[in-house]
């Protein structure tokens, strides 16, 4: 039986620096394709923060907590497998409702930092391949619960940069694959969270530039 983990190999000639201009060109030129991706958590978060009084927050929190699993992660519904995307939604939600103290941050932090594979990339559930979008879902969750230092930042940065396409600009889910705006957003946002100075600071809860949120006076809770 193989002792190998499921992971990717980063080739020596993979991109290793941030190709910001290329990405700007890529996004500017992206106009003719259909948008398949629904930004579930981001749009719902923005909606919720404006209209918090129209929902029963206690019931909602109760439901979210009922989705906590035996491994500390969260699934889509009670009993569903822990999944980094769901965890991001839950931590974001708990932040917006001021309920982060209900989490077991050490246990969840452990589950999240276990997403990091030898290549440096992050997967979304155990024994799956790394994907650049999880650099966002996992990383932002770790930032929200105050444990972002539990992953190896240098290795993650190397992985994210390797997902760039030097010719077209943009980021793919993993090195060598086709780029798309979805993964480009999360690649850039992930790099920002890792502290890349060429990119504006991004808010981990709402995936928007911090200066925009400062302008409207919105600062969701984070654990330290």
């Amino acid at each position: 039986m193989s002792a190998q983990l499921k992971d990717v190999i980063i080739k020596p000639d993979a991109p290793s620096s941030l190709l910001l201009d290329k990405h700007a060109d890529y996004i500017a030129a992206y106009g003719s394709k259909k948008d398949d991706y629904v930004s579930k958590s981001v749009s719902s978060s923005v909606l919720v923060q404006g209209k918090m009084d129209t929902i029963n927050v206690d019931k909602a929190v109760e439901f979210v907590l009922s989705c906590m699993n035996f491994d500390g992660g969260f699934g889509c519904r009670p009993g569903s497998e822990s999944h980094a995307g769901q965890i991001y939604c839950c931590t974001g939600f708990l932040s917006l409702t001021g309920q982060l103290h209900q989490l077991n941050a050490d246990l969840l932090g452990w589950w999240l930092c276990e997403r990091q594979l030898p290549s440096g990339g992050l997967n979304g559930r155990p024994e799956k391949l790394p994907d650049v979008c999880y650099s966002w879902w996992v990383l932002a969750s770790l930032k929200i619960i105050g444990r972002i230092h539990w992953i190896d930042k240098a290795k993650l940065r190397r992985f994210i940069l390797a997902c760039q396409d030097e010719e077209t600009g943009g980021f793919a889910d993993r090195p060598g694959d086709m780029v798309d705006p979805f993964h480009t957003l999360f690649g850039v946002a992930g790099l920002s969270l890792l502290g890349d100075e060429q990119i504006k600071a991004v808010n981990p809860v709402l995936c928007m530039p911090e200066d925009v949120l400062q302008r409207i006076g919105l600062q969701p809770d984070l654990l330290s």
Partner: protein
Amino acid sequence: MSSVQEASTETTEVKEQKEFEGDADEQFGESFGADPTRYTFYRDRKEWADLEPVPQDDGPNPVVKIAYSDKFADVYDYFRALLKKDEKSERALALTADAIELNAANYTVWHYRRVLLQALSKDLREEMKYITNIIEEQPKNYQVWHHRRMVVEWLNDPSEELEFIADILSQDAKNYHAWQHRQWVIQEYKLWDKELEFVETLLEEDVRNNSAWNQRHFVISHTTGFSDPAVVQREIQYCLNQIRKAPHNESAWNYLKGMLQDRGLSSQPGLLEKVLELKETHCSPYLLAFLFDCYEDALEFSSQKENTEQEQKETLKKALEICELLAQEKDTIRKEYWQFLGRSVKNKYGGDGPSVAEEAKPSVPASETS
């Protein structure tokens, strides 16, 4: 002989072509006309002339406007027209199928389709066939699974579900939607009977299938539960067997830890010994982490076990050694985490060493020999 055959073959072909064209007119109205490959826009179909198409309102300053194809815009302009009129008709139902084909994620269309299915008292068995085909084509879409769930609920008939989901899982054994739907069906209709067997089959195929391990936990916690020591022993044995086959298996170790963490890791008879044994031949970072958890558990519940202070010190030393080993050698990528654990456990249970300004929970009973 052959010439006669050929003649009749030609005749058949021509006949079939004409039948097809005729059928096409009946089935699709004038959508295809005489040529079955030519698509007619709704705006050009005379039986739709009574409806005024409603263009999409993107607001005064659209940001990142989507460049819809002509065909897409046309179908959805007419969909909006139907919604506006609240029309409940066969032609509306047919249009929803076109709209879904263009964007199966549009939940407004799905909702409207469901309204129409009810209003027109459509054959739900036919709808099951329809949704089965769509899911086979697009198995990672939320709306299609939700729609299937609604139809199953209306029919109150889950009899096709387990087999259908198994088929989808045979194409992607970790499809999150499929598993979720499966959990719903099983829980709603109490179809627990053969599920553990199903999980084991999948784990035979891929012991690293985390979804299957999750399902195992789901089935057991909703049936026998984990309170029965016999069940726990069986599960421990199962896990260790799987670990022997594939030691670097995060899922198996997570399952083991998850099952035992609230039941006393260190109080499972013989478990620590078995893990120490495995350490010699089937070591992994997960095994070491599990060992640490055992030691931590032992430290936490030492008062119940009447451990001596010496035993406590030994256990703490072993726990710290593991953290060091993981941080420095076996799992350096998570160095920060292992060092954090080491510090936590030292602060909590260690009497020696430099004091750190963190609150230590009193868990060690006052020593009689100081």
